[in-house]
């Protein structure tokens, strides 16, 4: 219990963020109509590409002679960018098709 309460107090900002973000996400997404469920998925998918920040940080602070870290990090950057760019582009393409009237 002690370990847990210490952990909670040390990370309380993060824990608050997580809890609030869960509620915020739920509230925001509840209003999305079934019509747009596919763009919602691919758009939120692009947002999940936010992990690319982590891959930039990993590569950016790797030692220049640590080839393994650089190569793996590079791979992570490529995959993350694929997720972000592909996700937003495909969502944009889909959304441009939804028209009220021609």
């Amino acid at each position: 219990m002690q370990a847990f309460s210490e952990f909670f107090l040390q990370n309380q900002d993060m824990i608050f963020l997580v809890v609030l973000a869960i509620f915020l996400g739920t509230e925001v997404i509840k209003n999305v109509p079934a019509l747009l469920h596919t763009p919602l998925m691919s758009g939120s998918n692009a947002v999940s590409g936010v992990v690319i920040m982590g891959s930039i940080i990993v590569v950016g602070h790797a030692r220049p002679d640590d080839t393994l870290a650089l190569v793996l990090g590079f791979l992570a950057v490529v995959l993350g960018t694929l997720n972000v760019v592909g996700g937003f582009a495909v969502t944009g393409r889909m959304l441009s098709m939804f028209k009220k009237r021609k």
Partner: protein
Amino acid sequence: MSEFLLELFYIVGCVTFIIGLRKLSSPDSARQGNNIAAAGMTLAILGTILFHKNEAGEGIGNLAWIVGGLVVGSAIGYVMATRVKMTAMPQMVSFFNGTGGATSAIIACMEFFSSDSTDWGFLLVAYLGIVVGTVTFSGSMVAYGKLDDKIKDVSGRLMTYLNWLMLAVILVLMTMGILSPETLGANGGWILLGLSFLYGIFFVMPIGGADMPVVIALLNSLSGIAGAFGGLIYSNRIMLIGGILVGASGLILTALMCKAMNRSLMNVLIGGFGGGSAGSAKASGEQSYREVTLNDAAIMCAYASKVCIVPGYGLAVAQAQHVCHDFEKSLEKKGVEVYYAIHPVAGRMPGHMNVLLAEADVPYPKLVEMDDANPQMPNTDVVIIVGANDVVNPAAEDDPGSPIYGMPVIKVWEAKSVIVMKRSMRPGYAGIENPLFFHERAKMLFGDAKDTLSKLVGELKNL
């Protein structure tokens, strides 16, 4: 100063994500929302490169590697996104989802293997990042292969037990690794990585085509959760918030899809329709169906005042969305009111039918959700079913013996007459009998959906 600027960029990024998702609540503002979120993401990436400092106060180095990765990733992502056919959208979404999962898994691995920390908070987050990221990656890639018809369904009781076993071992290993980091050491990380990879494959493998919307939504959620763990590793708020938003949205979608099939998530994941192969005893007796000729079908539609089209996965398979729109337009020229009734799980991913029909230029106010379509059925003259089966099965309403009993369906049999377009009398997914085909108001029109629809358009012209 640079830390301040970084956090400033991040908070703007977080706000754009929320605005972007909010604007998705209406088709009119959704595109703008997508652009805003994309701009926010770009800003956050730039901010990270320009202003991020490690504990020693050093900025981001190895710029060639980073910029190179960004350029390569952007080029491939952009080309894939612009070339993909709308019918292949479920595969594409799974694929991008998988790459996001892989990114999370790689960074969690790199942090885990390069650190000798025994802090249980760090270990917990790193292990979870590895497991969830890897499962997202391998699961999404299997989903991609299945949707693209590269991988067949494999299922069986043994697989279910194997999945439970793997999940249990993963949980036990994680607990061990956190409680006594020395015993497992780096090996624990490797074993977890391998097991998660296998688990991702095995948990998606047995899931049937019609259950795909649930799995894709779930994997979508997992990719967000994996990103959030990455955020915890780096105490990076934008990763955390972005990841949680996606995790929450994916979970809501998953719940919606499960509700639309009247099944629990557990039931979908275990695979198959329970002991569904027996199907309904009642429906399997000798029954007769009626066929309708193209000409009669065209006449029925042309002289109706209200026609409803119910699309299903068959429409996507036959690539019939454009000719379907032509058919709808020819009917409207004759003064017939036409609308589409769309079941939440029709197709292979949430909202699949809407995207296909939007691609064919069907104006979206014509795309009516199931709950709004059902009350209109009694005053609809003709319902045309194009490649849908289980979502219009009356057994879901009145046959407690049917495996899909209780699933909400589009009540097409309440309309004055129903035309079912189908390749043959073969039952659909999981071999569930559909009493609709033998219903007194239903008539069958056999053939390929695209072919039949274009012939109907021709018939309508001649009327």
